[in-house]
């Protein structure tokens, strides 16, 4: 698979670190709401289709970014910085 790094261009997936689902919204720092953090941390749509997710170009520019990838085909649908 090739992952388009928004900064370095398309690179091999081996240069990246996967950061998981990016569609769950991170609760605000110190929100104090256990349930909110639980749902954010543990519950996923896990769709078969477009999936918004985090990647870090860990062997390259070390930048994290969001990527929309189709989990049914591994096609890259789009990126988001």
């Amino acid at each position, binding site marked *: 698979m090739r992952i388009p790094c928004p900064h370095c261009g398309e*690179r091999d997936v081996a240069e990246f670190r996967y950061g998981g689902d990016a569609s769950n919204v991170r609760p605000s720092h110190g929100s104090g709401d256990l349930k909110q953090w639980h749902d954010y941390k543990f519950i996923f749509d896990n769709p078969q289709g477009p999936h918004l997710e985090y990647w870090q170009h860990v062997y390259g520019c070390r930048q994290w970014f969001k990527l929309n990838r189709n989990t049914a085909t591994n096609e890259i649908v789009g990126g988001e910085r």
Partner: protein
Amino acid sequence: MLKRVSALASAITFTGNGLNIAEAPDFTLTQYAGSEKELKKALGKIPARMSVSLEHDRRTQLRINPTQIWVIGEPVEAEACISTPLSSSRTRIVVEGENARFVLAKLSAIDFHPKQFKADTFVQTAIHHTPALIHCVGENAFHIYAMRTFALSVWEAVTDAALEFSA
């Protein structure tokens, strides 16, 4: 001054058919970090984008991500932005000669074709599972900036890939 010791103190320069590999030590590397404005203020001119290096004021600038620039050369007095000395953190290996691109192609999943990877461009990629910056400094001349602690393993990987060009 204390004695400087290279991570490749034990390495022997490789000379082969259309290929030389050696350490290129004694450089000064400083990282400057900040917003576009801060970086411009501190460095004067900066590269507009990543992947293309900029020669400015007898220094080489490599923009390694949107907010950080490596400067190779004398450090700049930079009040406007954050600076971090990194000269010890990287070990520089020079690979040059008509066969250099074939050697690099065994190390990284990067298109090293002369039309794609030209002089004064660079990539940040992986060599032997470690991060490396490869800078094309001439038609067939390259600087590899390897992590210091991995430098010997990277050196071995580079010279091993060169075996077919042994003299």
